[in-house]
């Protein structure tokens, strides 16, 4: 063993006080006592790291295994075609409700998220302005989703009649009430409110993914497009977005998967419904909410239903992701 390693004088950094000063040769000194000891520590570290990866994977397999096992046992055709109050119980309304809510959320959330990503990459100047936008998106992504439910509840759902609407918030709520009445969105629990809450959750995720993917598009593409006489927006729409699309779609899928499993904000917005409805102006049911309600039940058949619902929910997310991935793979443009 080299002597400078053993007595800890080895200096790995090219410059003594450069950015590499964190390299502490002391670490070698502490551990490099003897060849055998070093080997024991080395091997046990490999074993510990491998074991922790195995632990993480085994948890995944345990969750998926139990979900498949219990879900398949209680899943049948009645589950997909019947309603919660029918005699063989089913969750047709919840499945349809989840699809409608996630569809509404995507329609609103995906474009706004992509616009934020586009702004960050194409239009924002490097400096504090783009930093602030990024911070705002990070904060929104880190906000507990319940709070977005509460926001939509206060702004779109709850009635303020009989209450004195004063001050800035009062004026704002009054304006929103008027707009809502004009558009025709009722002021009670509704699919619209649920969709809006989920859209707010989607936006930061989609924005982050779009930003990362748009940054990957080579500058040469943009320059080539500009050299051919395309304007900035034309370059964006015809060259940059198609190139980055498959990556952005992955981000969108992530957001959809995340939103499809959201439960807490829906308690305050779409609330749940045991009847069948396709109209977003009604209260809407969704699979996660139904899973929660039934899991708290003492009736065994309802608990069984919640297992089947969990399986259906996760399968829906998986199938949707797989289909979207296959569809976008064909349209991918090679970046080099």
């Amino acid at each position: 063993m080299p002597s400078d390693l053993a007595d800890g004088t080895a200096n790995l950094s090219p410059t003594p006080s450069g950015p590499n000063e964190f390299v502490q040769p002391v670490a070698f000194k502490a551990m490099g006592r003897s060849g055998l000891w070093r080997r024991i520590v080395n091997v046990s570290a490999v074993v510990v790291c491998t074991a922790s990866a195995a632990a993480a994977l085994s948890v995944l397999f345990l969750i998926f295994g139990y979900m498949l096992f219990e879900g398949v046992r209680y899943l049948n055709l009645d589950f997909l075609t019947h309603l919660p109050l029918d005699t063989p119980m089913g969750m047709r309304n919840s499945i349809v409700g989840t699809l409608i809510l996630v569809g509404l959320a995507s329609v609103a959330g995906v474009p706004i998220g992509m616009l934020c990503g586009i702004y960050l990459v194409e239009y924002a100047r490097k400096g504090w302005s783009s930093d602030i936008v990024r911070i705002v998106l990070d904060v929104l992504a880190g906000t507990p989703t319940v709070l977005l439910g509460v926001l939509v509840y206060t702004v779109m759902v709850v009635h303020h009649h009989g209450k004195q609407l004063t001050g800035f918030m009062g004026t704002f709520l009054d304006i929103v009430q008027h707009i809502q009445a004009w558009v025709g969105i009722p002021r009670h629990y509704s699919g619209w409110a649920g969709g809006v809450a989920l859209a707010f959750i989607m936006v930061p995720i989609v924005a982050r993914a779009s930003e990362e993917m748009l940054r990957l598009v080579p500058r040469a593409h943009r320059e080539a497009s500009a050299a051919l006489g395309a304007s900035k927006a034309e370059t964006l729409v015809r060259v940059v977005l198609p190139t980055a699309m498959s990556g952005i779609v992955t981000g969108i899928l992530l957001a959809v998967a995340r939103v499809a499993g959201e439960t807490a904000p829906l308690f305050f917005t779409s609330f749940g419904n045991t009847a069948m409805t396709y109209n977003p102006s009604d209260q809407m049911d969704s699979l996660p909410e139904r899973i929660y309600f039934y899991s708290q039940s003492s009736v065994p058949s309802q608990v069984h239903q919640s297992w089947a619902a969990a399986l259906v929910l996760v399968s829906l997310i998986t199938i949707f992701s797989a289909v979207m991935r296959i569809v976008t793979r064909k349209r991918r443009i090679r970046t080099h």
Partner: protein
Amino acid sequence: MSIGSLPPGATAPFNRRRRILREIFDRTVAGLAISGVLAMFGLLALIFLVLLDGAWMALVKVNWHFFTSSVWDPVKGHDHYGVLAFAYGTALTTFIALLLAVPVSIGTAVFIVRIAPRWLSGPVSFLVELLAAIPSVVYGLWGAFIMSPWLQNYPETWLYNALHNIHLIKLGYYPGSTPKYPLPEYFPANLVHGGPSGTDYLAGGLILAIMILPIITAITRDVLLQFPDSIEHGAYALGATWWQTTWLAINYCRVGIFGAAMLGMARAIGETMAIIMVIGNTDRISSSLFAGGQTLTGVFVNEFLEADRPIYFSAMMYVALTLLVSALVTTLAARFMINRIGTRHASEE
């Protein structure tokens, strides 16, 4: 000069009308992008305004006593609001989750980056990230019906048999009880007081640990990948073993790993459904890991729609405001740390 603008005096190879249309298209896209960003600014401001507006009455009337009392008594006429028990539940479960998840995440990330062969690291990384795609309510279902009974029968029973005679400190009365509401309940500093229950702080912490594992692993992996090859080769050249080099890498990336843990913490604080399904939902505080508890998000989801009186509703909004501020602080701190690793790497190029 920005890309796409023509130099002065150049003649464009198309007619004037088309050029105007292009200009309009250009400006529309730019305007849309900016309005999307402005909408997000508005959304964040709106969350703050709505929560502040809602919580104002409680902010004035309950003030900071909100955080020093553990008595939650929303009955009409009593109206005593103290969230110490819920804040304690959030803090304790988050702490347990980090204690369990951070070492496992670092181990997994090291396995993915530095141990696994190329054909294995991709799938392992994908599978761990798959954990993040499972909805939290499914975690809750699994936790309530599979994990809790197992936890009660095996680990908690063993822990109880091992630790139930060890009292760390004997405290007096229930902390946070006020002279007006003296609670004749002891606070024994015994980690397993009450016996195995399965729906307790430990179960909440464990389910949170599983939920924040993928996010901490993913970021730690990304940060470890930024460890420069030059330092790695230098370490090997000096005779360092694999583990010593890895330890250098972990040390090099410690700020980023700390940031990853903070992001996991933010996630754990905001987590709602899984935890209310396993933690037992009792408005109490206990030193025992085997006692049922409640978190801030839990009390919020359970009681928000029942808050029928202005002061009760306002107290619920106060809880929401607390959640927002704590999530905001942890998220910002985490991002700051994770970005620092990136800029340091960039400055060395």
